[in-house]
């Protein structure tokens, strides 16, 4: 973190020295950070898709891609180049402006969420005092993009996919937020760096284990991954809301989805797994790497679940969300509140 801090301050000092005004410096620093985040997501993406393919192959007793690069690592970059070279079809009957911007808005929200996500101590664009609130607020807008994509395609499968997404994401937003509330109550701050600092001695997964499970389930639904991938349920909806997308727009959907996956995994690592705090005093691994390891552990969980379970039916999904997850998450908040009260009574 020291290095990154030095880089950031060094860059700012250097820009100031070049005679830029404070605002301009800030803007340039922001732009650099944004680019870095996009680069981070894209680099992650390559690893992620490779992992996804390799893991799925492992679960299915296959080998997976192994011709391009070491163990097929370069398969995805090649895929991306190919997709970029594909024809970009906009169906004649589609709502063209909405169709065009839908995938981009999802991408933007995926990027925006990263404004408050720290990748290490001080490695953050804006350490907002309402960081987690901002993340949730931005995350909810993703729903609209999916609905836009589904609606604008003028395809019945897409429309059904879009409708399912809205129902599912709005329902699962609630338990997700509630599950995070327990942690926030224990820390007493919405600032992400505060939350990480509070976990120096104990990760919140221990007192908030139930909340972690709820968060995990809810985010599987939020990111549209199996077994809750109803929005793109291949078996009945062909490809759901992005059925009609081709070429680069399809690639943007995919990138944004994986971006969201990384984002929720990061939040899970920060909120429950101690962020960049090293466990068992293993401080020789840099904090940034620790965070990365935790993120990838979360992603592995996501993939494990996806490639194991069959898809759940939408009404079961709704029942599960409203009748089970929300009450449990509320109970968790209650127990947490009582616990904090008792703890304060004891400690004074």
């Amino acid at each position, binding site marked *: 973190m020291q290095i990154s801090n030095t880089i950031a301050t060094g860059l700012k000092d250097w820009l100031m020295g070049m005679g830029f005004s404070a605002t301009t410096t800030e803007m340039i620093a922001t732009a650099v950070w944004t680019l870095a985040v996009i680069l981070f997501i894209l680099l992650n993406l390559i690893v992620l898709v490779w992992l996804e393919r390799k893991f*799925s192959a492992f679960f299915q007793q296959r080998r997976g891609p192994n011709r391009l690069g070491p163990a097929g690592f370069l398969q995805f970059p090649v895929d991306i180049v190919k997709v970029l070279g594909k024809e970009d079809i906009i169906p004649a009957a589609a709502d063209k402006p909405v169709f065009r911007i839908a995938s981009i808005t999802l991408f933007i929200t995926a990027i925006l969420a990263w404004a408050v996500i720290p990748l290490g101590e001080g490695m953050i664009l804006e350490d907002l005092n309402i960081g987690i609130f901002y993340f949730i607020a931005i995350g909810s807008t993703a729903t609209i993009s999916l609905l836009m994509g589904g609606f604008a395609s003028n395809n*019945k499968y897409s429309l*059904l996919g879009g409708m*399912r997404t809205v129902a599912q994401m709005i329902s699962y937003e609630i338990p997700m937020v509630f599950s995070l509330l327990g942690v926030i109550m224990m820390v007493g701050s919405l600032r992400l760096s505060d939350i990480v600092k509070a976990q120096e001695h104990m990760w919140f997964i221990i007192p908030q284990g139930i909340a972690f499970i709820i968060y995990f389930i809810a985010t599987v639904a939020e990111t549209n991954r199996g077994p809750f991938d109803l929005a793109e349920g291949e*078996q009945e909806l062909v490809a759901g809301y992005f059925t009609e997308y081709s070429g680069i727009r399809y690639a943007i959907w995919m990138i944004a989805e994986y971006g969201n996956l990384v984002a929720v995994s990061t939040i899970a690592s920060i909120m429950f797994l101690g962020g960049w705090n090293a466990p068992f005093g293993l401080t020789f691994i840099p904090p940034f790497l620790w965070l990365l390891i935790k993120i990838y552990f979360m992603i592995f969980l996501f993939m494990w679940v996806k490639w194991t379970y069959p898809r759940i*039916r939408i009404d*079961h999904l709704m029942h599960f969300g409203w009748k089970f997850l929300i009450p449990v998450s509320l109970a968790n908040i209650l127990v947490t509140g009582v616990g904090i009260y008792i703890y304060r009574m004891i400690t004074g």
Partner: protein
Amino acid sequence: MLKTQELTLNLGPHHPSTHGVFRCVLNLEGEYITKAVNHLGYLHRGIEKLAESRTYTQFIPYNGRLDYVAGMLNEWAYVMAVEKLMGITEEIPERAEYIRVIVGELQRIASHGIYFASMALDVAGASAWFYGFRDRDEVLDLLEMVSGQRLMHNYMRFGGVAADLPDGFMNKLDKLLNKLPAAIEEYEGILLGNEIFRARTVGVAPVSREMALDYGFTGPNLRASGVDTDLRRDEPYSVYDRFKFNVPVRQNGDTFDRVIVRIEEMKESIKIIRQAMEGIPEGPVMAKVPKVIKPPVGEVYSRLENAKGHLGFHIVSDGSTKPYRLRIYSPCFVNIGIFPEMAKGLHLMDAVVALASLDIVLGEIDR
């Protein structure tokens, strides 16, 4: 009262879960089906008409193309019908009959393996799909060993089989049979015991006993609805009367039962093959049949317990070398007739699974 507009959704003929080229036009209220209409014939190749311009022997390979996941059983059904018509059923050497039982039951396992795989895929348990195909490949290896082809075996002949079992077949078969029970256990672990899978299938799209009979269900689908019938036991053809096996019957007739019946059948098939392996006699594999097949004037209707149900052949002969009329009673064609009735009121997701649970093969439906 609020009412949503009905949505007409065209499912197929190109759709990931219509098992080929089945097309169904659905009326949806929300995501619940109010009306379903079947559209068939996207794979209609006119096999029945082609049969009239082929000699009896020339028609054998076409059977594999009917139900292309259970080609061996189809060939057997056809060959059996012609043998009945010729009146040479008694002359078939015992060894040939035993070989037929072995390859037929292997084919049944392979077919049910695909059934399990496609079922898994339709509930989006993609990994389980690969397990079904993995074991099917093992079975196909053996069938390839005897016939030289993976799918279209062309192995049955009037009066026997094309060739004797190759060397080393029994060893390989033994190894496979030792492996299969563990594989089936794996199926049960990965999919059948899964909570989500049960929620998706138990009580979904039930078919009552009366309805099943009325709609002409046969085979595993009928047994899932509580009708205890199996041609292999009730009207034993070939040498099935010498084997001891159970006929799995389930009572509810829902999607889950239709899956379970087939999984149980795979286990029974293993038992039958074991018994056939022990009892197989030495001897010739072909009866003495005339070079030119010319059945006498007359007709025959003969059925066989296929992997999907009763596969019947109604052959009318005018005494020439070609059938005068050949009708294929296809179990899938009749089973699919219930789908509009079954789909009514189902959720779109369940309808897809219910369709898969009927075990349809479009090659046989459209012929």
